[in-house]
């Protein structure tokens, strides 16, 4: 493998470094219209009308668009299709789009938006999980405020709990998290001939946008084309939300038959776009005297916000993973995604898992403390190994490097040296260490398996360069680079000649979303399928040129073909092969279509093979706490990850470092606040506090490779995992330093000192 497993330079690095990459706001079209959004100032209310007259009279204003003018169906297609493009009848969260102001300039559109008068009769909003599930709560969704619920039942946990030697019971709470991608949401919709529409923009899931624009306009899929532009980060935040933004711009473009540009300001991006779901987790765990888990009862609630959007799927992943990577014969997990009058929550790196991981991994630490067991040791006792059975009774049959991540991380971090009980520590500045172990089902799993397929179109151009169109996107994670490495080696082409382009819905069929750490695995496999078809044609040409009777006698590696029997002999270069391929009139294109390995799920009991394979990790966090101010520094995080195979080790390390930092923000400072009426208070970077480079700890990534036999070169997928277990590792380290247990994120100095009220 000439390039797989090597840290090849990123395809997009130089342009980004030099500021040459063009993002959506850098594009323009002549005769373009500018759009701004008028939003609900109330969390909940009856929308009696919209007075557009003053805004429409302003010079430069072209129109004000409301729900009644949506040409197609006024609902964003997703799981339940319950979110409207523009509010109609009711407004259900602070920041909900009600009208679109269309003008000749951005400034005029902004100014006119302030003149649109909304006639809203405020209603009492429902603002939290506990409030929403109360019997007496006003019903804002269905007859119980529950969007969806799941049940995972293995053995008989209620009975087993009765005979457990020790029973531990705790509640944990986790906050919102904002994605804070550098590039805010933005699109340009351009109408074409015969009712066609092209939408360019920053996004993660062009096929979701495709569905949404077609539905908003009432057009056929072959009249709508979505082109992803260089995307400045997504992290899940651009999974479902760009559908709404693109719908808005496309509606305007169609109504006025002119290109329409809609770019969000940071403040409206934070107020209106999806976030990580706040979570409430109630855990009851039974163990034997040695710390082996014998029974688990877990109730998991997430705050879905005003519309279901992705809540049902986010909840499913969290539910399945709620116990963590621990063997247990008796498990009962119940979960609820509840409605509130707040911004709809959606995907964020980890997708419903970080909440339960915080709970589960904190709980493991609490159990270890109570039973006087080293926290690393209690994981050795319980962790998955090949042959273990998960909470859904799936047998882990291969590719399980969890124990190796535990051993490698604890050794590298010097755990045995550093760990001691909090009572043994003293002084104003106290150090602590904490551990967490994580597993993560790669891909969409049994819950989303109908979407788990991807296409690739691969063409060898006349000059030998290779053009690959795929169904997943590059959003900064390095997909184009890693996939080009896979394609190059699979084909035998030189890496420099292989290019994987940004997604375009007219180049490949619906390949599902770019989420769930599925891109390297899914698109990688699909590229290999395409390469498998092209390679024999190249070998045939090479055999001919080298005078070999059969293609089996020819090798093609790294852009050079030669006789297997004479590796040092005559070589044919890739460009010459391509030229001859065309001269021989062989088909230079191929199509790959990869369907995910099977998974299964029983609706009643939640039992089955939830995901086709899992990735694993161990995090060890080290902190130093100032006992007088409660301030602390996360000094080092050691993270060992099993992702099957590191196609590009540097990219893997980059993912570990970036994800770890996001996880640190979640653990230590990030928090969305609302006032008593449900208005978001800190929708700006001055008040939504994220870590900066000054807060960055020493990061120590470790790669562990337990190959998966269905993965491209053994790779599984792991992009989300680095974030997921960081918060409990830090919380456990804080406990280890101070003896203070934080069960409600973020871990603020005020909480450590008990001065947070």
């Amino acid at each position, binding site marked *: 493998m000439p390039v797989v497993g090597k840290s090849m330079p990123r395809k997009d690095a130089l342009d980004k470094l030099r500021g040459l990459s063009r993002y959506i706001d850098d594009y323009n079209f002549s005769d373009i219209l500018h759009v701004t959004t008028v939003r609900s100032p109330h969390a909940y209310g009856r929308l009696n009308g919209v007075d557009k007259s003053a805004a429409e009279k302003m010079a430069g204003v072209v129109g004000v668009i409301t729900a009644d003018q949506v040409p197609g169906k006024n609902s964003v297609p997703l799981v339940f299709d319950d979110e409207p493009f523009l509010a109609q009848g009711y407004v259900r969260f602070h920041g909900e789009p009600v009208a679109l102001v269309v003008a000749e300039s951005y*400034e005029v559109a902004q100014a006119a938006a302030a003149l649109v008068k909304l006639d809203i009769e405020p209603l009492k909003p429902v603002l939290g999980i506990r409030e929403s599930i109360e019997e007496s709560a006003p019903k804002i969704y269905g007859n119980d405020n529950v969007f969806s619920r799941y049940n995972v039942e293995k053995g008989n946990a209620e009975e087993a709990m009765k005979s457990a030697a020790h029973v531990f019971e705790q509640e944990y709470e986790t906050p919102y998290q904002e994605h804070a991608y550098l590039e805010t949401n933005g699109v340009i919709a351009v109408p074409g001939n015969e009712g066609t529409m092209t939408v360019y923009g920053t996004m993660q899931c062009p096929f979701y946008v495709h569905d949404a624009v077609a539905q908003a306009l009432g057009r056929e899929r072959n009249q709508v084309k979505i082109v992803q532009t260089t995307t400045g980060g997504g992290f899940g935040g651009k999974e479902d939300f760009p559908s709404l933004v693109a719908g808005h711009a496309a509606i305007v473009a169609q109504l006025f038959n002119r290109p329409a540009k809609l770019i969000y300001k940071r403040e409206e991006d934070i107020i209106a776009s999806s976030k990580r779901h706040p979570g409430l987790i109630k855990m009851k765990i039974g163990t034997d005297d040695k710390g082996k888990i014998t029974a688990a009862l877990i109730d998991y609630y997430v705050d879905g916000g005003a519309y279901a959007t992705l809540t049902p799927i986010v909840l499913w992943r969290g539910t399945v993973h709620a116990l963590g990577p621990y063997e247990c014969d008796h498990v009962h997990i119940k979960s609820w995604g509840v409605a509130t009058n707040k911004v709809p929550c959606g995907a964020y790196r980890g997708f419903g898992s970080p909440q339960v991981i915080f709970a589960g991994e904190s709980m493991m630490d609490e159990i270890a403390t109570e039973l006087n067991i080293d926290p690393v040791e209690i994981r050795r006792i319980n962790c998955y190994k090949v042959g273990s059975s998960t909470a859904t009774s799936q047998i882990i049959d291969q590719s399980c490097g969890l124990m190796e991540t535990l051993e490698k991380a604890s050794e590298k971090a010097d755990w045995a040296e550093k760990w001691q009980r909090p009572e043994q520590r003293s002084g104003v500045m106290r150090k602590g260490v904490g551990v967490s172990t994580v597993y993560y089902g790669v891909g969409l799993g049994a819950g989303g398996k109908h979407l788990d397929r991807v296409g690739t179109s691969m063409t060898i151009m006349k000059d030998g360069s290779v053009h690959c169109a795929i169904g997943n996107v590059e959003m900064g994670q390095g997909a184009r680079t890693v996939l080009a490495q896979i394609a190059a080696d699979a084909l035998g082409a030189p890496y420099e000649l292989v290019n994987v382009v940004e997604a375009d819905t007219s180049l490949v069929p619906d390949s599902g979303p770019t989420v769930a750490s599925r891109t390297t695995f899914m698109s990688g496999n699909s590229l290999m399928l395409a390469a498998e078809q092209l390679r024999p044609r190249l070998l045939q040409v090479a055999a001919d040129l080298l005078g070999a009777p059969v293609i089996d006698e020819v090798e093609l590696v790294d852009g050079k073909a030669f006789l297997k029997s004479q590796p040092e002999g005559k070589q044919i270069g890739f460009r010459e092969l391509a030229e001859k391929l065309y001269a021989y009139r062989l088909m230079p294109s191929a199509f790959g279509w990869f369907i995910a390995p099977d998974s299964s799920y029983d609706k009643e009991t939640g039992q089955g093979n939830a995901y086709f394979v899992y990735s694993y990790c161990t995090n060890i966090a080290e902190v130093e706490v100032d006992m*007088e*101010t*409660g*301030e602390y520094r996360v000094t080092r995080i050691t993270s060992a990850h099993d992702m099957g195979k590191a196609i590009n080790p540097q990219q893997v390390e980059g993912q570990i470092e970036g994800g770890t930092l996001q996880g640190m923000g979640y653990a230590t*400072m990030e928090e969305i*606040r609302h006032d008593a009426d449900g208005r978001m*208070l*800190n929708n*700006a970077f*001055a*008040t939504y*506090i*994220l*870590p*900066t*480079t*000054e*807060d960055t700890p020493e990061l120590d990534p470790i790669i562990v490779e337990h190959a998966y036999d269905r993965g491209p070169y053994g790779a599984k997928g792991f992009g989300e995992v680095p974030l997921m277990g960081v918060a409990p590792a830090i919380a456990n380290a804080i406990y280890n330093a101070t003896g203070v247990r934080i069960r409600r994120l973020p871990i603020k*100095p*005020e909480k450590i*000192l008990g*001065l*947070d*009220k």
Partner: protein
Amino acid sequence: MSNVEFIKPTSLQDACEALMKPDYLAIAGGSDLIVKMRNGMYPNLKGLVDISGLPPLNTIRTDENAVIIGSGCTMNQIAKDQLIKDYFPALAKAASTVGALQIRNSATIGGNVANASPAGDTIPALFTLVADIMIIGCNGRRQIPIVEFFLSPGKTKLAPGEIIEGFKLLLRKTRGEFLKLGERRAHAISKINMAVSTWNDGKNHYRIAMGSVAPTVLRCREAEEYLESSEQLDDNTIARAAEIVSETAKPISDLRSTKAYRKQMAGVLLKRALQNLR
């Protein structure tokens, strides 16, 4: 925003005249003003008067027994100035904690004071150094002791047409400390900040001021007097002084922190500052 007139005066007099017009504002580094404009806090703004290039505002100079810090001096300029570091360490330290490097290259001390945020980091330091604010207007100059300058958050005694020309500090060697607690290690508005300066002219003097614990920066007279009347700065004295400032602090709970935390931290910060100065 596009209809705002931008004026670049060539003299202080011209600047003052331009600022006489209603809805015209001075702009120095712009690190507070631009943010506020973007947040829609000046919907009627008509003009900006850019005072950043006016030479007399950009220097630190001595004048007989005083040091005059021009209002247009940036945080980095102040933090790196040898005279300030030697004579007024509390101010040098405060300036060096503002924002991050890029902000410190544009943020001015005049803007920090005129913006009148209760969390402005150089303000407590200037309190402890007994600074006089030198003001110039169309009708001449006047001086106000900094402790009298602030009325409420964002409100000062500056009249229309007036500009802060600089800050006048007695040329006197002080020792000092500045400490702050924020939500992260850079780009953090203080949850609480505290400056302490001390000097000896035959007798020990202490000045203590803290921010983010009241609508304007608070001078802690009671603790100052207690320290000045104490024989020595031993642990008991420090502990008692810390208790006093904790009582003096009148904070509220807001997005950044809580009342209880701020009150307790007032004592912790004073204790640490005094320990460092011992």
